[in-house]
């Protein structure tokens, strides 16, 4: 059961090739557990967790775990629009999954328009490389370079050991919160990417006033 008091709700989507570890990453983030065997995701699965930004608001994350399989693409696409950010997931032991990242990124950009989505690039299965069970096919430098080019945060994680899992989600949450503070993101009717929480009623009213004041300013 998700925490009930929160200030904002962000909708995030996890995308990437099939079997890169999206569901495992999310399961660890959600339950703190790693499941050795997991079935391929059917359609889109949903998770929710509330996290606290240090000395900031409480944020409920609605996380949409999409199926990587091609046959589900028509369904997963419908979830892009109402997302504010996307976690681009690849398997560091599988070159192709990293090579496909630009495709996933453009897909998300196209569907999240007119909003500019926040991305983070997450490499999975770090444990396999560290314990020698798998061979690294994507170097950390490559990923960092891609991140620098597109100005996105990059991180390598392991859903088995839990390393950096929390970091991946808090990084994207922080960035979205920054964009709200800077005024780039606003809550909009009919868009579920960002919503204000129930413990945030007073702030919510302020926010509405702010939006209403906007056109008045521009017309003068």
């Amino acid at each position, binding site marked *: *059961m998700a925490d009930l008091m929160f200030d904002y709700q962000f909708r995030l989507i996890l995308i990437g090739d099939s079997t890169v570890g999206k569901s495992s990453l999310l399961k660890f983030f959600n339950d703190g557990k790693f499941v050795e065997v997991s079935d391929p995701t*059917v359609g889109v699965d949903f998770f929710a967790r509330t996290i606290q930004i240090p000395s900031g608001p409480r944020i409920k994350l609605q996380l949409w775990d999409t199926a990587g399989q091609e046959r589900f693409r028509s369904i997963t696409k419908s979830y892009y629009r109402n997302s504010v950010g996307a976690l681009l997931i690849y398997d560091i032991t599988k070159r192709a999954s990293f090579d496909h990242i630009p495709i996933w990124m453009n897909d998300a950009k196209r569907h999240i328009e007119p909003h500019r989505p926040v991305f983070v690039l997450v490499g999975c299965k770090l444990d396999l490389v560290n314990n020698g069970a798998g061979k690294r096919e994507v170097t950390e430098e490559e990923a960092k370079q891609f991140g620098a080019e597109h100005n996105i945060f990059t991180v390598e994680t392991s859903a088995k050991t839990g390393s950096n899992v929390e970091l991946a989600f808090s990084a994207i949450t922080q960035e979205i919160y920054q964009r709200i503070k800077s005024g780039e993101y606003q809550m909009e009717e009919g868009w579920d990417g960002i919503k204000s929480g*129930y413990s945030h009623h007073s702030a919510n009213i302020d926010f509405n006033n702010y939006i209403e004041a906007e056109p008045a300013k521009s017309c003068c």
Partner: protein
Amino acid sequence: MSDSEVEFESADEGSQGGDGWEIENDFDLPDVKPVPQETESTGTKLSTLSNVSDKVVTEQNVKCDDTLKSGENDASNAVSTVQSKLNKLVVNNDNSTKSVPQISEVVQNEIMQTNSQGWGGWSSGWSVNSLLSTATALTNQVSQGITNVIGAPAPEQLASVDKDKEIKDLNETKVNDELTEEPSESILDTNYFLSNVSQITKIVETTGSKIISGGLDTLETVGKKTLEVLQDGDPGLRKKRAIFFQNTEKINLSQVLQEAKEKAEIESKQNNQVEVRKGYAYLFDSFQGLIHLESLELLSKQCQMKLQTVLLSYSGTQLTDIQDQLDQIKDLCYLDFEDDEKIMTIEEFKNSLITYVNQISSDVKTEKILRVSDLIDEKSNKEFDNEDSIHDEAISALAELTAAAMELFYKLGEMIMIDTQSQLATVKAEKLSLLNESVCCRIRFIANKYASLLTKYDADDTSNNISDVYLESSNSSSYIQDAAQLLIPILQLSVI
């Protein structure tokens, strides 16, 4: 098109002789043409007409005889056309009891006579009226044509069309009268002719403006008609709408639940309750029922829109066939179960759930809802300290099972959307109905169980608590049924 076209022809012919026939060719429009084109060509013709009338002035003044001769030559060519025209005029007038061929002979003779006396003059008088009538007729005709194309006109339109027809008939009568009168007039008189020419110019002017405004009216009519047709002209379309928009009128179920939850929160805040008494809607949301319901609504809407687009590309019997198919699926989803009191024990529920879900899609996992069901069963068998905790547990159990059902339906929806091959949609629809019924039976079982636990108490609140449990139980059932119906468009789309 026929009447006014011929009138126009005769008008051209009259003022013009040889040149006029070009105009006639221009005017040889097919019955139904896009309006803008027609208006355009009318404009061209008008300019030609004014050229023609200029020419007529000079020709008539300088070589009146030549014109007459050419008129004679052309007249013989024109006879057949004029003849048919005149046939009509005469028939329309109903003055004659003669048979049509006879009339045409007579008319032909008349024309010959007219020619010998002065073709140009005769036609000048003729054209004045015919131009006018042509202007009105053209407009009528265009709008009539549109009406014919688009479908049955509205009663008031029919009335106005009738009126226009009357006017037209009147004009025709007049024209016909003049036809017979004119030969006796001294039409070669130059003054008379000149005045006629200026009259023609004026008429061309007014006709022009008439046609322009007529064209605008026509465009307006086209727009109105199009809208009318889109709205309810075509019964097929209406049927389509019935399919598409059946759910749009309803407020989303998820919205209702969301509002209920928010209202409860605000109320509890107002009452300054330290501990929020967790209501059904609130629990339903926290068990992630709301989010899955919303997702199911999203899929459903998406499929409905696709269905709409696909259906619009069909027509006639094809459309009817498809609609029958869609209706069949819909009916199967609304299967009526007579036994409202039927309940299901945990084992019965498990068996039927697994059977039905696998028959719809083997990819959908039943573990979660079965785990929830088991957990609820466990909880309901434990010892309770007090009445309120039974009540709260009951509400929570109902909300949790309903939420799990939402997730199950959502997953089924996804699979139905993806996997259109494995089973017939009708089979899926039927199994879905049965599955739906099973979940409702399980809900009733839970409600009954908690209610019987509550009856052991005999406090003031007991009956309130019991009716509360039954109320939420019946709410749960209706949410489940509504959610199952969201699958209808998804199923329907899978057969197209």
